[in-house]
């Protein structure tokens, strides 16, 4: 890992360059470049095993990189670890990060005191953040009696204790119900609106839209994409279309068989399912354009009454970037 701050990191809250991490023979991070600006909510997206948690643990100084450099707020993470820990909040992915036999309030007071606060200040601040995350009424209850969602909110409360400048959130919503997940996202949005740079690691594509401004997509330890969420959507190459077909045959199965025969390997036709009789999903083959497929259907007297892209956007981009990547 190299020394002090670089000119490249100027104006960034989080900056990693040429970051590599090996676990034995496995390359968990491979030449990763990652930047987050102050006040930005940045999604770190990737499937399981992509290297998201490894990257977060390196940013936290819990893990040393094999190569490359990491800076938070312009300071080298390794050299300024203690100083930076006052400025960084962390929401871990797991549940078990609290003392379950003592209350939520006592847990927060303990961690606030480790942040350097005196007892009175620690208690006041803990009550304040508990109120903020909607746990004021459960403050005196043992954490062991908290629901999963409550523990997650407590985790956010702990991360906010010292008003962090950088907030690292690792899979905070992966097993929460939709309401609980939205509540957690709102809390993080609020922290971001108050100036914190947020790294939001997730494998859930649907929560990026409307949450993050920029996204870094990791796959097998490599950055496959870095840019705006809209740019990621634009990368989508829609391969599936929902079409309504007819050719005078009575049954859907017969229409489908005729369509498959007409396409001659240019694509596949599958029923949409449900009550959408006459509607099919047309999946285009590799290097086949939609026009060719539709022309083939028309040539076989199959009428195409409607045709629209099946969900494209970031789901497709995600699949495109992760499935096509070389192993």
């Amino acid at each position, binding site marked *: 890992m190299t020394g002090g701050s670089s000119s490249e990191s100027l104006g960034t809250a989080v900056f990693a360059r040429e970051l590599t*991490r090996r*676990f034995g023979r496995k390359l968990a991070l491979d030449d990763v470049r990652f930047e987050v600006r102050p006040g930005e909510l940045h999604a770190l997206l990737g499937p399981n095993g992509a290297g998201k948690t*490894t990257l977060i*643990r390196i940013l*936290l*100084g*819990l*893990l*040393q990189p094999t190569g490359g450099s990491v800076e938070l707020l312009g300071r080298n993470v390794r050299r300024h670890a*203690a*100083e930076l*820990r*006052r400025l*960084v909040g*962390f929401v*871990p992915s*797991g*549940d*078990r*990060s*609290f*003392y*379950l*036999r*003592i209350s939520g309030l*006592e847990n927060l*007071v*303990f*961690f606030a*005191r*480790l*942040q*350097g606060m*005196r*007892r009175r200040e*620690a208690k006041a601040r803990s009550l304040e953040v508990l109120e903020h995350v909607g746990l004021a009424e459960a403050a005196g209850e*043992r954490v062991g009696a908290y629901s999963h969602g409550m523990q997650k909110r407590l985790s956010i409360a*702990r991360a906010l204790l010292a008003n962090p400048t950088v907030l690292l959130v690792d899979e905070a919503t992966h097993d929460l119900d939709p309401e609980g997940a939205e509540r957690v996202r709102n809390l993080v949005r609020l922290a971001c609106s108050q100036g914190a740079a947020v790294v939001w690691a997730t494998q859930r594509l649907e929560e990026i839209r409307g949450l993050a401004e920029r996204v870094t997509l990791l796959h097998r330890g490599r950055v496959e994409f870095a840019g705006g969420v809209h740019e990621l959507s634009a990368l989508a190459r829609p391969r599936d279309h929902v079409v309504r077909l007819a050719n005078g045959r009575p049954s859907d199965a017969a229409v489908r068989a005729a369509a498959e025969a007409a396409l001659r390997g240019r694509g596949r036709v599958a029923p949409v399912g449900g009550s959408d009789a006459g509607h099919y999903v047309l999946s285009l083959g590799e290097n086949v354009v939609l026009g060719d497929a539709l022309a083939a259907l028309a040539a076989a007297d199959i009428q195409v009454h409607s045709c629209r892209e099946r969900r494209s956007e970031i789901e497709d981009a995600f699949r495109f970037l992760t499935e096509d990547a070389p192993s």
Partner: protein
Amino acid sequence: MTALAGELRKMPAFVRRDFLVAWSYRMSFASDLISLGVQAFVFAFISKMISTNELPTFQGEQVTYLEFAAIGIALGVFIHFGLERVAMAIRSEQLMGTLESLLVTPTRTATLQVGSVFFDLVYIPVQTALFLTAIALGFGLHLEAAGVLPATIVLLVFIPFVWGLGVLSAAATLTFRRGGNAVALGAVLLALASGLYFPVDLLPQWVSTGAELNPIALAVDGMRSALLGGAGWTETLPIVAKLAPLSAISLLIGILAFRLALQREQRLGTLGLY
């Protein structure tokens, strides 16, 4: 200095946390004391079978086996709990999943080590004193009041030795997980060769000679001389002088080993594994 003061200010937070956790398991408070009482009861009957002629004298005072063993039991319990709690403090954090949450706070590793056992280092000596008081009252144990302060000093100088072994054991546990009990086994062997429960003179010559440099033997001998023979500072200070460097070495080795173990875990990325 300010940084040190800042770290020291965190100690009460650890004590409060551990007191609250311990208090939530009230039965274990009671069972610890009951277990000590049962041991005293057993040794009181064994004492009736053992002739005092087989036992050493302390400052010319002939003692009963119960008096001899009570100090040994008290120190043995202190070593057992001290070693176990210090060794397991960090491991428990690892198992509970709280270790990484602690490590991301602006707290030095040394503070985490000390803080995690601070409560026990206060509680266990208090428990030891309670045991000796109870056995003195219940079984007519004759303790010299004048020896209480010198014995306390011996115990205080002995604490870093146990602490060092505990931290060394914690380092071994962090590195080898379940295979980290070798240090505790070593401590048990040291304890057996120290005369906690029987005079070292009964052991082979080379073992009793080695007791001169065995910190546990030095501590138990110093405490017996003070509490049973009423030894003053003149007799206690030479023991303290021998014990202090051994304790310091133990603590330094323990802290160094733990730091290296933690760095290794961070390098390998296996800190969260257990």
